[in-house]
């Protein structure tokens, strides 16, 4: 009689264990889906337009360096400007342009950004600001001048 009771209790425990494992597996699957979604970056047409339009923006550097596109190539080739380093001018121009045109801030549409101008492993300009949490959107553009230089902008919203 005692042996039958013990066996019944064991069966109950096994059933309970199976249910716990089943619930845990399902919860893990949903947690995985929930955590994976926000980190995926959406390609944005608006950000892409921003990058390509900004490349034509006029800068006061040298006779031959009239816009951002030329300035990026000059920065890559370590050429200077009238007022100093081309990379410094590039950095300050983009910093000002991104923050005033895209209006980055906690109460705004975009909360934070990461901006990079790079060629392979060589980073020419790196800018970031704001509270980097939430979903991502962004785009990148390529400038061809002997070497490929990439311009990328990621926004958090």
């Amino acid at each position, binding site marked *: 009689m005692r042996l039958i009771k013990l066996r019944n209790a064991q069966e109950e425990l096994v*059933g309970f264990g199976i*249910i716990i494992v089943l*619930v845990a597996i*399902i919860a893990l699957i*949903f947690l995985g*889906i*929930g955590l994976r*979604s926000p980190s995926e970056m*959406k390609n944005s*047409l*608006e950000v892409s*337009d*921003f990058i*390509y*339009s*900004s*490349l*034509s*923006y*006029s800068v006061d550097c040298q006779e031959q360096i*009239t*816009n951002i596109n030329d300035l990026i190539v000059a920065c890559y080739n370590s050429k200077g400007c009238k007022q100093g380093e081309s990379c410094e001018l590039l950095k300050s121009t983009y910093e*000002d*342009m991104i923050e*005033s*045109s895209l209006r980055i801030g906690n109460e705004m549409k975009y909360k934070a950004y990461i901006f990079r101008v790079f060629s392979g492993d060589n980073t020419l300009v790196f800018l970031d600001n704001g509270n980097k949490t939430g979903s991502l959107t962004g785009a990148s553009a390529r400038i061809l001048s002997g070497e490929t230089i990439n311009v990328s902008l990621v926004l958090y919203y």
Partner: protein
Amino acid sequence: MVNKKGQFKIQQTAFMLLALALFFILIFVFWISIKTHGMKTTATSLEEEKAILAVESIAGLTEFSCGKQYCIDSDKLMILKSMKDYADFWPANSIKIRKVYPESNKEVECTLSNYPNCNSYTIKAGGESSVGTFVALCRQERINGNSRQVCDLGRIAIGYDVK
């Protein structure tokens, strides 16, 4: 006694099955809500992309373009502003271009008397809601006797009626 114990066992199994079924229904509802939210987000972003593509196609029209992609000629805009006959030609309820960088505190509509010291070009007024994207806003300027293209960063917005 045995019959009562059997009934209790059946009852226990039935409750367990009911709880499991409820649990799976909850999971299903949760999954459906995630999927629906995802679909709504995708639909909204697709609508936005479609609208931006429409704006891009307008910005690319010969009447606006400065000859390269993502670029609007502000000298052309000044001429278009004065041509009222063109109002019905544009495939949008309103078209407005604004200089966004360098930034200025107040909006100054461009006229022949203040151009280029202004920041807003209203080609066609109207439309309840608007969608826009970035463009380069370029003009020709004479610097030290040489003609040079000067570009700012602008934003073109087209308006449409909300159905």
